[in-house]
């Protein structure tokens, strides 16, 4: 049937993205090679392009977001699928999905005018002895890594929790019943279910990670956009997506443009790997269960034949 041609379009688009990004970044790839990813100087005027600060900022903000978001997202998934009364389930699912539906730009706007001042107030309240630590060093600007991590966490929570909920749903009820029959408390039974679903849960967390890596607008608006590597939560930093959003239209030389596209290319490849891996984990979790179900069906089909 001709419908296959349309499905082919999907495959072609993905290939075209990879091809086009590589083609447009050849100048930078040839000129800098691997040094592009090892050096820290980003000076478009001097033609110096080192992307390490952006990688650092992207990883730092995404990991920070995961640290904040994962326990909360799993808590929500457990609460909705295991603990809450049935009448509350649909409204809660709707509200958490709404969290994912709010446009990134709206989070960014809210981030600039509400979250950043709040973060600054928090930073000012951190006692001086703690401010000596590298983690809290630097002036309390409000904009910076902490604000970016918080806003990313808010945006990632609905993704992780909805996949975790699906994964928990695929745990056979017999698991929990068995635990309860052995005298387990609620926590122990749920822990058993979570353990049973561990590959899928890891997949859910990774899916959130993939989202966080590529998130652009909200992060650009609160992270401070300063290409300087720092361990501090308070320091303004930069991410790969943010540098694309800010500098792409300003790139006045071919090399500059190629360097930016190369950042896009790496972002594409990394999110592709993270997402594929997470789907593989979620899928491998669901597959053995499907095989069990198939085992029940197959003999009936054979007898019919």
């Amino acid at each position, binding site marked *: *049937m001709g*419908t*296959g041609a*349309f*499905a082919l*379009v*999907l*495959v072609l*688009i*993905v290939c075209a*993205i990879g091809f*086009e*990004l590589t083609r*447009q970044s050849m100048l930078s790839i040839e000129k800098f090679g691997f040094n592009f990813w090892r050096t820290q100087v980003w000076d478009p005027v001097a033609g110096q392009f080192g992307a390490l600060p952006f990688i650092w900022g992207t990883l730092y903000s995404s990991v920070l977001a995961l640290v904040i978001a994962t326990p*909360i*997202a799993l*808590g*929500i998934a457990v609460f*909705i699928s295991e*603990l809450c009364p049935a009448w509350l389930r649909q409204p*809660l699912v*709707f*509200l958490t999905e*709404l*969290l994912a*539906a*709010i*446009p*990134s*730009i*709206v*989070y*960014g*706007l*809210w981030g*600039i*005018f*509400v979250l950043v001042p709040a973060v600054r107030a928090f930073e000012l309240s951190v006692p001086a002895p703690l401010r000596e630590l590298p983690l809290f060093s630097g002036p309390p600007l409000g904009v910076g890594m902490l604000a970016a991590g918080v806003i990313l966490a*808010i945006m990632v929570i609905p993704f992780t*929790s909805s996949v975790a909920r699906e994964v928990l749903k695929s745990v056979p009820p017999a698991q929990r019943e068995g635990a309860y029959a052995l005298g387990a*408390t*609620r*926590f122990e039974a749920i822990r058993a279910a979570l353990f049973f679903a561990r590959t899928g849960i890891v997949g859910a967390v990774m899916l959130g990670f993939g989202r966080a890596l*590529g998130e*652009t*607008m909200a992060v650009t*608006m609160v992270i401070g956009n300063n290409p300087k590597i720092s361990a501090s939560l308070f320091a303004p930093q930069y991410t790969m997506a943010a540098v*694309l*959003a800010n500098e*792409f*239209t300003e790139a006045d030389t071919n090399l500059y443009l190629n360097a930016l*596209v190369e950042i*896009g290319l790496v*972002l*594409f490849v990394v*999110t*592709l790997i993270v*997402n*594929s891996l997470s*789907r593989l984990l979620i899928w491998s979790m669901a597959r053995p269960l499907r095989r069990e179900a198939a085992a029940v069906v197959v003999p009936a089909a054979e007898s019919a034949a």
Partner: protein
Amino acid sequence: MTRTTGRKLISSLFVGFCALSVLLALVPLAFVLFFVVREGIQALNFNFFTKMPAPVGEAGGGMANAIVGTFMVTGLGSMFAIPIGIVSGVYMSEYAGTRFAALARFAADTLNGVPSIVIGVFVYGIAVLPFKQFSALAGGLALGVMMIPIIARTTEELLLLVPGTMREGALALGATHARAVFSVVLPAALPGIVTGVVLALARIAGETAPLLFTSSGNRFFTTSLTQPIGTLTVMVYTYAISAYEDWHRQAWAGALVLVSIVLMCSLLARFATRKIEGLQSQ
């Protein structure tokens, strides 16, 4: 005995933590909605929808051009994304077991996970750079590329829910495979697919990153396909990071309009799915 008490205590603490995490997620949601409504309402008036942006430094004006722009770019995107998305979804469900369907599904999921800013860079390379011109068409192309996988996967999932007996019935009456799919199976799943399309539209209308360097921005009214065009999201972004108090107010108003669109679509979709579920259970 104390051991049991300890275990029970841990269990209660765990339940408490789970309930708390729901609250922790709902607090930011409430805060975002609260501020968007409070700040947005103050700046939102009739002028916002009917007036052009005022010159820099002058108070007043609206975003009429950007509202039209958002509709245009979203419309352009859906014009090619909806057919491609639905038909490839049909392929993935009809040939569910085949290798190529699995490949297409993988491509759809991959495309779905590509950061929107990267889509922007890609479309810049194929639709802006060759013509040395930002354009509404390029913006539409970027949004369409983002829409295709969402629609394809929704269509696929919904088609798989249609009972096999319907397809078999059509085939038994002598319909060809294509006829059975397009005249019987697809219409049965149509309400759900429409819901999916509405949700995809809502999500796409709120995108900023893929538009920054495809349709770019424009403070003047245009409906030309080959000119840069202003959109609500890009306008909110420019206004939010500007230094003018009045622009900040208007950014909030723009955010309120965006959130209202998303909220209305979500509620509509939720209402529709409930209706469909009701029909299926009958």
